[in-house]
């Protein structure tokens, strides 16, 4: 039971595995997702930081460029002042320009030279610095060109005090080039320094002002200006000077810089703003470090948490396992309890001595068997078994041996009967057996005799004793003898007492027709039979016959019963053969004729529409020559129509006394009494022979009828017999019809009438009377 309802452990094991895998997987996915997200975010942020730095560098470079451009624009304006007609060629003009420039913090010195480098103004004795001659030549050559060609940026002289003074060479032309000259203005880098010194450019921030040829004029750092005019800083980067953003090392193996170059528009200068990548990213790096540390901590927490959860689940699983195992134990306990209950029930329903069922159990089992039996075509019989002289054995050999004997009997019964048979001990030495599912009724007889045999065999060693015992058995057949269990038991019990009386060690059927032995001592019966008529112990029972065409009762067969004062109801089988032997058959035969006529008369007197009664004639009665006459006399005596009386003769009785029978039957028939041939099919008669006899009706033997449904052969015999009989002008009655199937079969086959338990059993006169009053049976 537990297996069907409860297989959780395996199920749970799978679920546990899945659950654990799911948790681990989701934790791994979570971590993977978070790391992937964080790293991609960090990379985005890094790019953003670099982008921002680059933008501010570009902005700064642009601002400084514009500033420089403004300065250079104003330097060009100073040159234009000298070109104005009022100034042209005036040596004082330069002096005046100098005082003008002295108010301009960006420029320090103004000097005016001719094309050969000779100074115009008288104030200063110094000539054009030698390093600038090359630039002067360049200017004279290109003076016609557009753009910044009229401005050349020179390099400061080597003197320390001149380090910050960047000479700007500007061409000055008056009308007609007569006074072509060169104005040299010194751009004060200190001016730029003061302008930008508060700009936050970072520890490694670098602002460089470059000539277009890549030579660096100045570089500013957070701490101030750096001067290096030697040209040694002119590196690859500067040679390939171009606008835009670049990420490169400023020196070999040096730190990597992010830098942006902006060209000063229309002037040969460029501004380069750069910063070490490491510094740009330093905040980012510390943030990144924080992120990574936070993530690591988070990851560790997640991993720990996962293990804690799995651990908790494992603990939970072990609890659940414990619960499951306790559930299992509980179910085992329940099973055990149920087994014990079954055992107790068995004890209550079993006989503890023999292990057979007790009465209670037997009743319940037998009831259910019989309930099934109603629906089956099988035969059932109840055998009552009593051990003869058991009390004597018990008394002489002791209870111990008695018990062993009972166990021995029980063992033999169990051994020889089938599993389906129900065996019980009702108490004492009384056993009862329900023999089930027999194919043929006759098998009952066989089984009963076998019971007698097996119990009757000596018990070789019952605690050292050899014990001989014999059973007395009574058998009642279902549903022939009773259709309920109580009656069946009662009848079997009655039959068992018959066996006891018959001298023990034998089997008696409640239906005497089935008995194979003399029910009692022949002499005793003969004595009693002699007094039976005088004592009025005979009774007539009437079994109705049904016309299958009209569904009405067509008549009765009169059956004699001897109500024996001690033996109960004795059947004709048990005393007629004896009566035939002793000759008492004639008296009995006469009594039957008289009783039948009397009964007909009685019914007529009651105003009932009487139906023919058939009486059985014994073969011996053919010897009574006066029989036809007597029949007529009795009819007349009661004023009965001869058609109301019929006789039935058996084939065998005809064969035995063929000559007497032939003539006598003719006489009887001549008297208007119809003749039926009983037990047809059992004997040796051929229809050829029979057709010579005055027979009106043939009665098909119950043996054929019984098997008509199951046996093809029997079916064919019955059907062909019906056809032949009809051809001979005879009616056909089927005896022993017990089931509806038989009835249907017979009707289909053309049978005229039926007789049997299915329809009605032999009935006492008052019950048969009911049928006279209501002869129609449409329901069949």
């Amino acid at each position, binding site marked *: 039971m537990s297996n069907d309802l409860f297989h959780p452990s395996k199920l749970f094991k799978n679920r546990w595995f899945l659950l654990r895998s799911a948790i681990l997987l989701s934790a791994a996915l979570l971590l993977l997702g978070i790391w992937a997200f964080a790293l991609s975010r960090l990379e985005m942020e890094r790019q953003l930081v670099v982008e921002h730095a680059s933008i501010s560098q570009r902005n700064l470079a642009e601002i400084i460029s514009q500033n420089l451009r403004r300065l250079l624009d104003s330097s060009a304006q100073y040159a234009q002042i000298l070109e104005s007609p009022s100034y042209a060629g005036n040596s004082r003009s330069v002096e005046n320009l100098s*005082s003008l420039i002295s108010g301009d913090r960006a420029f320090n010195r103004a000097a005016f030279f001719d094309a050969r480098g000779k100074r115009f103004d008288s104030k200063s004795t110094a000539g054009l610095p030698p390093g600038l001659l090359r630039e002067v030549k360049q200017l004279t050559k290109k003076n016609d060109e557009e753009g910044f060609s009229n401005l050349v940026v020179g390099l400061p002289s080597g003197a320390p005090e001149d380090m910050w003074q960047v000479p700007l060479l500007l061409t000055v032309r008056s009308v007609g080039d007569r006074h072509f000259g060169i104005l040299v203005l010194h751009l004060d880098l*200190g001016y730029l320094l003061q302008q930008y010194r508060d700009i936050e450019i970072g520890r490694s921030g670098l602002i460089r002002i470059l000539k277009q040829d890549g030579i660096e004029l100045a570089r500013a750092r957070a701490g*101030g200006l750096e001067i290096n005019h030697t040209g040694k800083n002119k590196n690859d980067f500067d040679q390939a000077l171009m606008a835009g953003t670049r990420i490169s090392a400023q020196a070999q193996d040096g730190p990597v810089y992010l830098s942006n170059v902006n060209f000063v528009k229309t002037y040969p200068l460029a501004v380069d703003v750069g910063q070490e990548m490491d510094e740009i990213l330093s905040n980012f790096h510390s943030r990144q470090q924080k992120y990574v540390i936070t993530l690591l901590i988070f990851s560790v927490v997640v991993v720990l948490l996962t293990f804690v959860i799995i651990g908790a689940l494992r603990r939970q699983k072990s609890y659940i396992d414990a619960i499951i195992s306790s559930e299992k134990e509980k179910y085992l306990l329940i099973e055990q309890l149920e087994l014990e209950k079954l055992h107790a029930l068995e004890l209550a329903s079993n006989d503890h001595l023999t292990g057979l069922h007790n009465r209670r159990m037997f009743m319940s089992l037998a009831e259910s068997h019989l309930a099934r039996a109603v629906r089956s075509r099988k035969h059932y019989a109840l055998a009552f078994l009593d051990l003869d002289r058991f009390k004597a054995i018990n008394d002489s050999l002791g209870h111990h041996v008695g018990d062993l004997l009972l166990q021995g009997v029980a063992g033999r019964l169990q051994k020889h009967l089938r599993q389906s048979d129900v065996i019980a001990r009702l108490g004492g030495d009384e056993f009862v057996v329900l023999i089930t599912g027999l194919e043929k009724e006759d098998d009952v007889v066989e089984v009963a005799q076998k019971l007698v045999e097996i119990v009757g065999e000596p018990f070789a060693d019952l605690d050292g004793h050899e014990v001989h015992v014999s059973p007395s058995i009574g058998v009642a057949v279902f549903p022939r003898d009773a259709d309920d269990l109580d009656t069946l038991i009662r009848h079997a019990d009655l039959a068992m007492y018959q066996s006891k009386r018959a001298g023990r060690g034998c089997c008696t059927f409640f239906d005497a027709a089935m008995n194979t032995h003399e029910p009692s001592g022949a002499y005793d019966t003969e004595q009693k039979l002699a007094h039976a008529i005088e004592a009025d112990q005979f009774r007539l029972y009437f079994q109705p016959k049904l016309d299958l065409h009209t569904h009405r009762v067509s008549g009765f067969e009169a059956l004699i019963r001897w109500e024996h004062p001690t033996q109960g109801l004795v059947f004709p089988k048990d005393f007629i053969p004896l009566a035939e032997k002793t000759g008492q058959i004639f008296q009995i035969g006469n009594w039957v004729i008289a009783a039948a006529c009397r009964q007909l008369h009685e019914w007529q007197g009651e105003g009932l529409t009487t139906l023919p009664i058939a009486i059985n004639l014994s073969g011996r009665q053919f010897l009574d020559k006066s029989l036809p006459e007597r029949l007529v006399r009795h009819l007349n005596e009661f004023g009965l129509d001869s058609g109301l009386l019929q006789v039935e003769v058996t084939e065998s009785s005809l064969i035995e006394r063929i000559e007497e029978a032939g003539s006598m039957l003719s006489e009887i028939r001549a008297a208007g009494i119809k003749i039926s041939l009983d037990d047809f099919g059992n004997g040796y008669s051929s229809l050829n022979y029979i057709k010579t006899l005055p027979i009106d009706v043939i009665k098909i033997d119950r043996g054929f009828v019984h098997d008509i449904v199951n046996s093809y052969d029997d079916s064919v015999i019955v059907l062909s017999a019906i056809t032949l009989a009809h051809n001979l002008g005879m009616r056909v009655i089927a005896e022993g019809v017990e089931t509806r199937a038989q009835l249907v079969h017979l009707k289909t086959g053309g049978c005229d009438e039926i007789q049997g338990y299915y329809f009605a059993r032999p009935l006492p006169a008052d019950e048969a009377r009911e049928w006279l009053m209501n002869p129609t049976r449409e329901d069949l």
Partner: protein
Amino acid sequence: MKLIIRTIITILFLAQGSLLAAAPGKCEDPDPLRFSLITRKDPIKQLEDHRPLLRQLEKQLGRRISVVQVSSYGAVIEGLVANSIDLASMGPGSYAIARSRDESITPFVTWSMQGGTFVKANSLSYNSLLIVLASSTFKRIEDLRSHNISLTDPASTSGGVIPRAEFSKAVGQPLDDFVGRVTYSGGHDRSVIALGKRQVDAAFVASEHLDQAIRDGLVKATEIRVLWESSPIPHDPFVYRGKLCPELKAKIRGAFFSDTPEMREMLRNLKGDRFVPVTDDAYRQIREVMLREQK
């Protein structure tokens, strides 16, 4: 653009008138008197310090004093040489350079200092100091090899000239070769700030300006370690152009030595004890150093 040029030209014509009044050969008596200062430290603050002197001069000379704003030491030199500055406060170094270009430029007054952390009380000289942060690992001069230092201005005495000359001699090789990178901060106070920000590893500053920086709260005395000290340098002179008329010169000198609230305030601002007359002799030594440098 044209408009701007025309405006400038117009201004120039107006200026020309006053300039032409001073004929060459004759002494000059400029009105307003043009005054300028070398950029020792934050120019605005420095100008504020000199306000009392300017008030005293205006009172004494009976004329307006116009201040010529400059961007570097060199601008003052240039201004004096180009006759666009009449009176200036200079450093010994820058004076030396100016004098080398114009013999007529004359120092006439300096001042003795109040004592400070690094300046001896009542002294007429100061020193150039090579300073590092006390918390740094630089203990000896040699430790600074290939490290970055801050100078003030190429024309600064203690923050440019002396380090190049005297310090180079001390370490036996040019300053630029000994150290890694040389950065010019543009002012003594900025050098101190750059050092404090660790933008440089060491700085050459004037002792008097270091004291001032300490007074201004830019740095604490305990945070500074001095690794090298120059020989004494005479204090900064006030100079005037030689072409100024003698009466004007006398009046200017008189203004310095008059005991007025303005001049007392001036001395307080300069952390000076008193003004002291001075001649070119006091700066002869430094001029020789400069000359050697130029060669």
